[in-house]
């Protein structure tokens, strides 16, 4: 099925018939894109590594991530959601240079 990359890639049998869909293509779910992994976008590219021992919890990485991949607990960063991180590396530039708690490393090392 050519659908410009938007396809759900499910066979017809798993998709709902029209009667089961809401009128007007309304969707009554929220934020369900979390079930769609975008971590593979990193390909063989860069992976941010967060060193919590160095981290000063300034939250710059969290507020600068386009993909909301910094996991917070009680107002503190506790890790990175690699299922969704696209490896843009913005966080590594936003982490204050004298802290330098996030480094980008070659993904190949994790293969």
């Amino acid at each position, binding site marked *: 099925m050519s659908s410009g*990359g*938007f396809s*759900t890639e499910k066979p017809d049998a798993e998709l709902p018939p029209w009667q089961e869909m809401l009128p007007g*293509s309304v*969707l009554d*779910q*929220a*934020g*369900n*894109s*979390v*079930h*769609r*992994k*975008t971590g593979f*976008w*990193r390909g063989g590219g860069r992976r941010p590594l967060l060193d919590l021992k160095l981290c*000063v*919890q*300034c*939250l*710059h990485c*969290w*507020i*600068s*991530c*386009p*993909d*909301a*991949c910094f996991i*917070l607990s009680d*107002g503190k960063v506790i890790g990175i*959601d690699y*299922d*969704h991180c*696209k*490896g*843009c*590396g*913005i966080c*590594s*530039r*936003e982490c*204050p*240079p*004298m*802290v330098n708690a996030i480094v*980008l490393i070659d993904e190949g090392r994790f293969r």
Partner: protein
Amino acid sequence: MPNPELLLASKHSEPMASGHSLCAGCAAGVIVRQVIMSVEDPVVVANATGCLEVCTGVYPVTSWNVSWIHNAFANVAATLSGVESAYRALRKRGEIPAREIKFVAFGGDGGTYDIGLQSLSGVMERGHDLVYVCYDNGAYMNTGVQRSSATPLGANTSTSPAGNLTSGKAELRKDMTAIAEAHGIPYVAQSSPGYYMDLMHKARRAFQTKGPAFLNVLSPCPLGWASEPTDSLVLARLAVDTCMWPLFEIAKGQFSLTYLPLEKKPVVEWLKLQGRFRHLFQSDHQNLIDQIQSGVDQNWQKILERAGSAVPSFAGPADSDRWGY
């Protein structure tokens, strides 16, 4: 310790979930999160057709954790004004709970400077209580980087190509912030996601403002700017530190410069990180670079004159890599 602004925001539920398909390093995602997390009340989002719209909602999947509507390309402002009017009408008759709801529209520069300008102008004139955020990435990125009226002079786009006879876009960009200001609306600001404090503070003021508020936010685009995804927010700050994208606000007609670079950097520092300006450095285009610089200088001079003695007492760090810490 984090900034108190961020501590507050960290208590906010995530407005836009992961799993959207914005390019790696797209600043639009950063802008949306910073803007919505600046306000505690629930928001309803309207989205113009564009990158943000197609990448965050394709049936049956959405990244939005808030109510969201996309209508068409040219009419995000009018659409949201309809939602806001309905809210007032339904509240007036007691048909919905008396609960505060905020309204925010996101449009790219195509949907704001160009095709959506009339609709936005109408909304600003009518005085609807909503916030309009333009994420200005300076071209029609969703359709593959065509020029818009926000594209800077000299930028190479697919419809203002740098060729043997041409050097990218030949025209100056439109000053949309000034156009919004000319409507006499209560709050207009220009901001950048590279300075999250600035953007979140302005977004909060915009939401608190009764009546229309317009935020013009520079949105670096790795695809269209041909820049490193990693550099997106660096570019967002460099634009400010070169004074190419000054940060200011006009609240009830009162102009304030909200950021004064310690050292005004030459605009080439911003240009050279972007492939869309590469041709300016490859052949003899020093004239054009000078022209861009003098345009920036003139505009900055005007801004400084306007700010007068009211330039901010604080000043940003000279090195944009070391800002804010």
